């Protein structure tokens, strides 16, 4: 089967099936633009934005999802579910936050819609039904509303949305 060589930021080379790798619209476009044939006899495709550990996981995901139907076209008004993540998916992003965010960045850069969806849904599920204080804690974020001005403004904008 024809394969492609991918090179991570640390210059490690990964050899992957062309069909599997084409789930990344970025790589697919690169291949078409560079006129690369499928014979496998070419320079590796450089991905300076993705390190080896993450690239490995991305390839792992793509391998599992080669036969998935293309994701449905987004209907702005359709209900956005987050509870429809299949079991295998759920295990996959069970990684520390840092890795999860790196996967999001990689999926975003490589334009792999399915992977981007599942990783973002995972983060959304972590935010759901949490208070702002809990969100600060979970994601180790700082409340950067300097002075009382900005925060008070936010409070005023949203106070009519207080829980009834």
């Amino acid at each position: 089967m024809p394969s492609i060589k991918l090179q991570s930021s640390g210059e490690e080379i990964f050899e992957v099936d062309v069909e599997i790798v084409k789930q990344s619209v970025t790589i697919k476009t690169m291949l078409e633009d560079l006129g690369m044939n499928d014979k496998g006899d070419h320079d590796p495709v450089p991905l300076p934005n993705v390190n080896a550990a993450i690239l490995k996981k991305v390839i792992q995901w793509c391998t599992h999802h080669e036969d998935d139907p293309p994701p449905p076209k987004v209907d702005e008004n359709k209900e956005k579910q987050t509870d429809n993540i299949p079991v295998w998916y759920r295990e996959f992003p069970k990684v520390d936050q840092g890795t999860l965010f790196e996967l999001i960045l990689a999926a975003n850069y490589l334009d792999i819609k399915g992977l981007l969806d599942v990783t973002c849904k995972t983060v959304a599920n972590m935010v759901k039904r949490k208070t702002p204080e809990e969100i600060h804690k979970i994601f180790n974020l700082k409340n950067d509303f300097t002075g009382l001005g900005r925060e008070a403004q936010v409070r005023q904008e949203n106070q009519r949305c207080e829980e009834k």
Partner: protein
Amino acid sequence: MAAMETETAPLTLESLPTDPLLLILSFLDYRDLINCCYVSRRLSQLSSHDPLWRRHCKKYWLISEEEKTQKNQCWKSLFIDTYSDVGRYIDHYAAIKKAWDDLKKYLEPRCPRMVLSLKEGAREEDLDAVEALIGCKLPDDYRCSYRIHNGQKLVVPGLLGSMALSNHYRSEDLLDVDTAAGGFQQRQGLKYCLPLTFCIHTGLSQYIAVEAAEGRNKNEVFYQCPDQMARNPAAIDMFIIGATFTDWFTSYVKNVVSGGFPIIRDQIFRYVHDPECVATTGDITVSVSTSFLPELSSVHPPHYFFTYRIRIEMSKDALPEKACQLDSRYWRITNAKGDVEEVQGPGVVGEFPIISPGRVYEYTSCTTFSTTSGYMEGYYTFHFLYFKDKIFNVAIPRFHMACPTFRVSIARLGYLMTSVTVTPTLETIT
């Protein structure tokens, strides 16, 4: 596509590029989006990204693009404005508003008088005043509906449907909340029951139980059926029409707008038609729809009153010489116990209709059963108009009737602590 720092500080939620962050926020419900506004400046800014709020405006408040343009507001501010007005009902609003919108759209061309009789929504203060008056809380979904429309002016025709027989006419109006409060029941047998509808001709009402009592579940909607034989006036059986106000209202609207309940001369008639209940003999098709009349029925003694409406029509492609006239009818009536009654007689409701190609004839009659369900079938005998000696039978399809689920009055059950609910089935007896 943002470049990623692989050697610097670990990634945080904050440091993700805008596009993936917006994708994450797009999966959140409105409450979570608001909470994100308080987390940090960047999240606050992104959570207020207007397109994120379009989805919530449509989902919870059914606000359309046209309405938004008309009001000249952004989606987020529209969401918050509506929330500050009816946010209390956010769990019910979409279902009830949709029901009202569908109903009005369907009735405007067909029953304009009815739509004009709808009163403007009540204010929160008006509903609070009623709660103070009756000493009970009104269900949230009921309040939500009454914020949209405060019932009807007491006119014919009633929003909740009519029924007409030769000597009996009923039309149920949706009561406004103050009139309903005037009819709030405190007596034994109907404790904590608030009327939803009223018929000025028969005095019939559908009630909602605002508190659980006397074997009723909270929020049930029912017709009362006083026990004819009991000395205790508290012995009231109930035909259950809905488990909650929402259930009752939305299923009624569905029956109307789907064409399930026919509109006859600008009134809604609550006939139920089974699409498979049709029989064709030659060029003539007979179909039947039925309705249960609680105001003429009783559980004790068992007497279940049904009206049926029969439609006889001849295909417009039939040959002109097929024109015929109805001479007589034959009925075979079977109740749930298997008892059979046969009825024969000339004409139908005193008429001998002529059926010709394209002609439709409809008539209404009634029957009673001493069991909660039963069925009827039979045939008409016709003669051809131009060949008076040639007679033939036209089949009437078997049609079933069953009364709604009913609950037996606690007063009659006496020592039994739990109520008894009966749900009739349509099992045929062979």
